[in-house]
């Protein structure tokens, strides 16, 4: 109905010298029109790889989309030809990357790089594109925008570059904006500016946003729904309030417990998760969190739990014992 993107059983792996790295292991979810989804997890959990798979930006080889469907407006993006997917990229789905220092080309002016998408996808003339690029830059809050079009990326600060990247991503008014750790390289006061900007633009333009981050703090503020990922699986998914207030998966609770909070009482001890995430080449048969979980039982070692409904219908969790854990902690 109003679902914009539907992912079914997506799997991505990489063939390396050390073996097959199973980066994304069969994830399924849908993203509605105008929704902000936060995708949360630590390094190597597959959050970026799954986004790159949606955009078909995985280098093949060594990468391989081993299975699954990515339905975007009734089309399976995985099955499109490279010419067809190029039409989708940038126009329907746009992406903002983590590092604003390296994702702009240093030898072209900022204006040129924004105009490129406008002339390519929307068939604008140079003059039209230049005018529109100026509007876009001022929309993302860069003062004196028309003049700054002739600047090179090095003349912009980190926050301004990220704004320029967002302007570029929004140039064709995409239906979905994928932001992959857009504020990780930035300072907190600049991060607050960017979060505020994306929220404002999302409201104005009504696009859907996928915000990928390792920081549970940032998405608490901006997202409607959250996917928590671990070792290539979605292990918990739900409305933002459920994830933070009715946390069901022990990994999600662990992540929340390891975050210091500004409003914590003095002397609070952080709850750390012991051990390390599993090696993606050699994933365990059962639950990937088994080795670090304090609630583990034999079943967890033998069988991978599937996402099942917990509490309300929008809250799902992949844990055999979530009910018992919930009882014990309440």
């Amino acid at each position, binding site marked *: 109905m109003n679902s914009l993107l539907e992912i079914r059983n997506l799997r991505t792996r990489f063939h390396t010298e050390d073996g097959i790295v199973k980066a994304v292991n069969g994830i399924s979810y849908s993203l509605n029109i105008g929704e902000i989804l936060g995708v949360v997890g630590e390094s190597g959990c597959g959050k970026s790889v799954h986004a790159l798979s949606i955009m078909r930006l995985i280098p093949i080889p060594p990468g391989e989309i081993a299975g699954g469907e990515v339905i975007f407006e009734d089309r399976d993006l995985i099955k499109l030809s490279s010419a067809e997917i190029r039409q989708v990229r940038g126009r329907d789905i746009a992406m903002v990357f983590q590092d604003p220092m390296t994702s702009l080309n240093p030898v072209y002016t900022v204006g040129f790089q924004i105009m490129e998408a406008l002339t390519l996808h929307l068939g604008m003339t140079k003059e039209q594109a230049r005018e529109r690029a100026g509007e876009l830059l001022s929309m993302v809050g860069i003062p004196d925008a028309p003049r700054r079009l002739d600047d090179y990326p090095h003349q912009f600060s980190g926050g301004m570059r990220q704004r320029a990247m967002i302007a570029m991503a929004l140039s064709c008014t995409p239906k979905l904006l994928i932001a992959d750790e857009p504020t990780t390289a930035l300072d907190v006061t600049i991060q607050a500016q960017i979060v505020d900007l994306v929220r404002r633009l999302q409201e104005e333009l009504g696009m859907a946003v996928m915000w990928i981050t390792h920081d549970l703090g940032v998405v608490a503020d901006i997202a409607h729904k959250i996917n928590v990922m671990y070792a290539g699986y979605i292990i918990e998914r739900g409305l933002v309030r459920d994830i933070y207030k009715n946390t069901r998966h022990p990994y999600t609770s662990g992540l929340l417990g390891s975050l210091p909070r*500004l409003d914590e009482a003095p002397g*609070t001890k952080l709850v750390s998760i012991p051990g390390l995430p599993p090696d993606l080449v050699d994933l365990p048969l059962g639950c990937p969190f088994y080795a670090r979980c304090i609630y583990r039982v034999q079943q967890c070692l033998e069988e991978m739990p599937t996402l099942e409904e917990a509490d309300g219908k929008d809250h799902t969790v992949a844990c055999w014992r979530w009910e018992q854990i919930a009882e014990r902690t309440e």
Partner: protein
Amino acid sequence: MVADNDKLVQIFNLKKYFPINQGFIIQKHVGDIKAVDDVSFDIYHGETLGLVGETGCGKTTVGRTLLYLYEPTAGQVLFNDVDITTLSENKLRRVRRRMQMIFQDPYASLNPRMTVGSILASPLEVHGMVSGKEKRDRVQELLRLVGLNPDFVNRYPHEFSGGQRQRIGIARALALNPDLIVCDEPISSLDVSIQAQVVNLLEELQDRLGLTYLFIAHDLSMVRHISNRMAVMYLGKIVELANRDEIYLHSTHPYTKALMSAVPVPDPDIAKSRQRIILEGDIPSPANPPQGCNFNTRCPVVADICYKEDPIYREIGDKHWVACHFA
């Protein structure tokens, strides 16, 4: 906790300028990057002093100048009442035993061609402290202290994960039984769940060994978690310094307030309800800081006086220092 008034480190009017030179063969001095511009504070025995600020505010330079890894442009650094800026090299080396550093990047701060054993033994050798079996015992003891298997002595850094490497970095800092450890963003390159492990270890070691920390980081909530007192830096100056709760509950400098409100809170209810102060613009260049108060380009409550006079860093309450005309 802060037992009494005995100060381990006292810093008076510390300045560190990095010269900007122009010219290819004949270099001309055309200006200075004022990385640290007139900073004074004390660190008490056994406490953790947190130093927060954004990129380029000079917090790392403070840490390094304090250890005399950089020669200060002006000012004094007293360590146990001895001014280390005037010491001879020999005497300085003896004092350096008592102060160590943990670095930000555990991938770059360990020599990839040395085994963990030799990494940990080298401070002992440099300072001629122990030899032979004693050295081997000490290395194993250090590994145990930071929660690593003592059989790992013959392994190389690449065999360890980021969190484990940071533990090796901590063990190296502990090798000489220092009094003070400068922790320069020790956890910012680690994953969240690993960060908590390392912070807990640092807290545990402090309790056991009576260490004093200068904890430098950009993550305000982590600094507040670990510190007894906190100092906030902006553009080479300390703008506010107070007890951790005092600064959280009664911060008076507009930059501290903005920084506090920009920190993401992992709680959707609080995130929605709280008032956010969003600062405009970027940090000015430390080569050309604004006249008057250096925060005047972004300050939400700026007034005429802020463009004319640099505010004095003064005590406004019990050990609560601030540099603002309106505090």
